[in-house]
């Protein structure tokens, strides 16, 4: 199975939300990283056929979305960011409704609904109205509905946003369970979410792919550029103003700084193995810092 994005563009007036994106996706988990406004959601909406590209096309196994019609959507599972529910429906009713929209037969719909509600641990509240659910429960219901038709292409837009750390771990595991033999595109600006489960990292900035690398080698480009240094409080402030400090940790009256820089910021600085978060901060700098502080 091949999902091809060919010269995909989406312009809003003069703003280029997605600008000439081309790639071919085969089964695997793709972590789509980028700061807010990078174009991730726009790209995912186009892949899901709910937003028309200004130009370019999307093909599944050589055929465009328009050519495939319903057959394209039959392959798709989508969990949009902050999507709404029907508050007066119970979880079970919502799942059965979505199963009907996805074209599942009555028996299959019931079976899948029970399976998935159990898998996302909502089976005990299946007959409770969704308006009584917490954010985490709604997110779990969201991914369960995306999985109803056992899609070949699973698109998850910021699925862990708003979840506490425990819920996020639980969610990551769920996604890993669902990801077998599928194209999974997982968009997030929370780097740690994808670092555990992604096979490939797609990094977006200003509507284009900044990089597209296997997870194993994605940080190679900043090897030797991540430094750690133990300094005093006064020096820490000085380094922070001069360098990109990605982490700051107090140790016995001193401060351990983690910095990204092409050369050693000080003679005593030592290089450390880069993480995905370092790479993210290296590319997004202040944008990412702002988001992290939020």
């Amino acid at each position: 199975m091949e999902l091809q994005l060919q010269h995909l563009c989406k312009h809003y007036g003069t703003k280029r939300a997605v600008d000439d994106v081309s790639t071919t996706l085969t089964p695997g988990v793709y972590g789509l990283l980028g700061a807010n406004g990078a174009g991730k959601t726009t790209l995912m909406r186009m892949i899901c056929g709910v937003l028309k590209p200004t130009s370019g096309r999307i093909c599944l196994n050589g055929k465009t979305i328009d050519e495939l019609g319903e057959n394209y959507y039959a392959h798709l599972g989508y969990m949009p960011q902050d999507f709404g529910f029907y508050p007066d429906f119970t979880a079970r009713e919502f799942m059965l409704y979505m199963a009907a929209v996805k074209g599942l037969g009555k028996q299959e719909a019931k079976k899948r609904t029970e399976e998935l509600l159990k898998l996302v641990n909502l089976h005990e509240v299946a007959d409770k109205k969704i308006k009584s659910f917490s954010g985490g429960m709604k997110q779990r219901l969201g991914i369960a509905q995306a999985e109803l038709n056992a899609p070949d292409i699973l698109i998850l837009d910021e699925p862990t946003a708003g979840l506490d750390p425990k819920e996020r771990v639980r969610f990551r595991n769920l996604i890993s369970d669902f990801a077998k033999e599928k194209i999974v595109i997982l968009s997030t600006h929370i780097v740690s979410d994808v670092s555990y489960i992604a096979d490939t990292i797609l990094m977006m900035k200003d509507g284009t792919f900044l990089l597209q690398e296997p997870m194993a080698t994605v940080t190679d480009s900043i090897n030797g550029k991540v430094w750690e240094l133990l300094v005093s409080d006064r020096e820490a402030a000085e380094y922070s103003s001069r360098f990109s400090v990605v982490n700051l940790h107090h140790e016995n009256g001193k401060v351990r700084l983690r910095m990204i820089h092409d050369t050693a910021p000080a003679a005593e600085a030592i290089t450390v193995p880069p993480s995905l978060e370092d790479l993210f901060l290296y590319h997004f700098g202040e944008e990412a810092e702002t988001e992290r502080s939020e």
Partner: protein
Amino acid sequence: MLIKYEFLKILRKKSTLIVMAASLLVTAFLFGLPVLQFQTYNQDGVIKGLEGIAYEKEQAADYSVPLTNEYVTETIREVQQLFENPDNVGFDGYEQFLIDSAYWDGIAPREDLLNMIAKNYVNPNESAGYNKLPELDISEGTDFYAARQEKIERLLNDASRAMSEEQKAYWQDTNSKVDAPFTYGYYDGWEIIISSFELLMFALLAVCIVIAPVFSGEYQAGTDAVILSAKYGKTKLTTAKIIASYLFGGLSFTLHVVVALGLPLAAFGFDGWDLPLQIANTTIPYPFTFLQAALVNLGVVYLVLFAMIGLTLLLSAKMKSPYLVLIVLVPVLFIPLFLSPNGTTGIYNLTLFLLPYRSTIPEVGKYISYQFGGLVLDAFTVRAILYALLTAAMLPLARLGFKKHQVS
């Protein structure tokens, strides 16, 4: 299955129940008002409500008769004889009228019948009561139906109506199907129904308010992305939404119709359903009984409803929130309420008679017709065709609007 869930989505909303309950109450109040306010008189004073209705029905029972020329002549003669005795006659400085037992025994029980007969002999647009009957020359009897025909001729040839020959021929042909002699009888319940159809506009608005979020509610709630990216999101789901909307609209409106028609019929009775419309106004050209006229107009009202549901769905598919839908819809439904026709011809009047509000009013006695080349059609037919066409045009556009919706 999809239809069931879409229907449930409409039905489960608290706002649906509130809007429907409120509009049912308004409809019940408006159609129950003629019962509550009903009053009639006898020599002892006023009789109100159900008691008054029962009294009138009892009085009218004696006059459920075929209006043959002989019967009409005899009735006129009876009134003329009453006027011949000066002790029976009062004068208010403007016109004569009967007083005391002459009025209460000779006129009151059949005043509507006498007024109808009197009106048959005066010019169109001229009012007349029983006190005009003494002016008629019945020395050689009277031909009630020839007088009716003459009045209709005068009406058709009235310069202010500016009717073409084709229109006159159309109305003459329609009128020729009216059976004579008419059978007179009690028809108060049906008269109230036929003159109150426009009050169903509140029910129509309520249906539109409930239907407004069918598409736009998905955009507003953010569920559009999930359903539009599903296999049947742009195809069968759209159809299911439309069918569920019509199902809800049809059923809930029918509930209103049952209340609207049921209250007057429960109070005034079903009597008069098989009587001709002409006993209310002899110049009405339609060969319908009261029941037939009510059903024909109800059919038109349903077509208006279906077109308005279609328009609501189209707006809903195109607009981002149900409130925007209502901002457009409410003026379409209610601005015509404040516009009055100044005749029955001209683009302004002919357009006005086709707008949703006016289309619910039967206007059976107004001779409103539309000419397309040599083809003449009456208001019922044009309204039916227009609203059926509008429904047929709006639904594909609503479907397309939802299918092409861009999630933002």
